[in-house]
């Protein structure tokens, strides 16, 4: 369970200027819930995710994860980034095993678990490849396996499919949903795609920019397991997408500084 309590974040852009990236954000995410944070670029949605991850410190407010205030990164919260952030000097297998070695898991056990995860993300056979030899979609599969390997309770996904082409993107969305529906980890998922947010989430948190605020939270009442092809024809799914897109359009355009 994640509880974000009145979190604000100010960046000092220059000596005299301060930019309020997040203003007074409160949100709680239940265990096993899939929550998307949706908003235009520059609304601070990634910053909010980094604060929950403990990578960035908030200016005020608190984040509490399973009764403990967040003071830094920890293996209970596993990040997946848009940039993949694989260790380029490690093979696919080496990347997936990295967190397990770090946690002191015996070699053979870590090896077995890593192979199992690579099968899950459909990459068995690529164990000895280096990241540079993989396509973007494959890199992100490795990154997801690497994070799932050390069994975080919470997945923090920062526009994980943002750098992928449309086809690969829908494939990975389907696969992620398949993996998630098996063990129902808590997921905080940042995206700027309305369809992606509606397709994946239990709730969609809409944010406005400058300063970043929560505009609305929409509960997505669609049955699971969800199937993309069926959903595209589903009237309720279409209504959600249209409604949310309309609300997004009401926002003034973000100034790009």
């Amino acid at each position, binding site marked *: 369970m994640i509880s974000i309590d009145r979190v604000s974040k100010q960046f000092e852009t220059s000596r005299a200027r301060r930019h309020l990236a997040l203003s007074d954000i409160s949100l709680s995410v239940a265990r096993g819930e899939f929550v998307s944070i949706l908003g235009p670029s520059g609304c601070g949605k990634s910053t909010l995710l*980094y604060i929950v*991850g*403990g*990578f960035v410190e908030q200016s005020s407010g608190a984040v509490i994860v399973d009764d403990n205030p967040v003071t*830094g*990164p*920890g*293996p209970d*919260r*596993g*990040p997946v*980034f848009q*940039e993949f*952030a694989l*260790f*380029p*000097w*490690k093979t696919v297998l080496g990347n997936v095993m*990295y*967190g397990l070695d*770090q*946690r002191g898991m015996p070699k053979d056990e870590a090896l077995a678990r890593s192979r199992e995860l690579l099968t899950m993300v459909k990459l068995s056979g690529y164990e000895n490849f*280096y*990241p*540079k030899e993989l396509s973007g979609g494959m890199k992100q599969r490795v990154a997801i396996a*690497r*994070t799932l390997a*050390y069994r*975080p309770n919470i997945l923090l996904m920062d526009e994980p499919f943002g750098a992928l082409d449309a086809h690969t993107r829908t494939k990975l969305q389907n696969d992620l949903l398949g993996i998630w529906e098996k063990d129902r980890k808590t997921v905080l998922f940042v995206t700027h795609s309305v369809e992606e947010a509606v397709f994946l989430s239990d709730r969609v948190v809409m944010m406005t920019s400058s300063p970043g605020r929560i505009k609305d939270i929409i509960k997505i009442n669609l049955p699971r397991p969800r199937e993309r092809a069926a959903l595209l024809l589903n009237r309720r799914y279409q209504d959600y997408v249209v409604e949310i897109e309309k609300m997004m359009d009401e926002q003034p355009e973000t100034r790009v500084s």
Partner: protein
Amino acid sequence: MMADIVSVERAEAPWWSSAGTIPGLPPIMACIGLLALWEVVARWYGLNGLPPASAALPQIPEILTDKESLIDIADSLRRMVTGFALALIFAVPAGLAMGRSKHVAAFFNPLLMVIYPVPKAALMPIIMLWLGVGDASKTLVIFLGVTLPLIYHSYQGSRAVEEKLLWSAAAMGLSAPARLIRIVLPAALPEILVGCRTGLVLALITMVTSEMIARQTGIGNIIFVSLDLGVYDRVYAMIVIIGALGFILDVIFESMRGRLVAWAEPSQAIVVGTT
């Protein structure tokens, strides 16, 4: 996209570039050309101080079989290796720390800016006053010469490490010092090795110049003693040996570097033709 561009360039390449398809041929041709030019110019001018290649080159086997010259060369190489190793031990950690901490960078940066333009050999007379004319001062000059490119490239490499890489490691539980050694060091390795390559050449240069100022033993000593005695063919033979030494060291280093950072993305790899 890239493949297309490359193939287009290949199709339009002039006929003589086909020599590049035989590995090793262009450098051999360059060497032969240089030797021929040397021979012609030396014979044309007939200067005492410029013996033709045909007179200088036969000196090479003589130098390389002479026990005393071999001891000189070994002395030089020993100092070079020591200076280089000390520079590695100091410069790589310092450069990596600079890249990750603004405070460390703010401390070292002005120091480096001041030391960078000073020719290291020019410090040799001063250093000799402190440490004498022996190994210590020569090794120190080599150390100074190698340290600067090495620290600079380590700094650049460390600064360029993607933040998300460090965050991913932090989430796995790696502490800040562990991240410096296990994430920043390997991630910056391609750039560090670029610095090592420059450092290797500078080590050779500072090695010879240090021996030129403090003559006692070494490769520089052979050159300048021969110069004083007017044995010019020996001087040129020694210059050729130094050049060959640099070339061999570079080839060995490049093959090692290729294996160490084979994993690097093309954007991280440097393309400098050697062989």
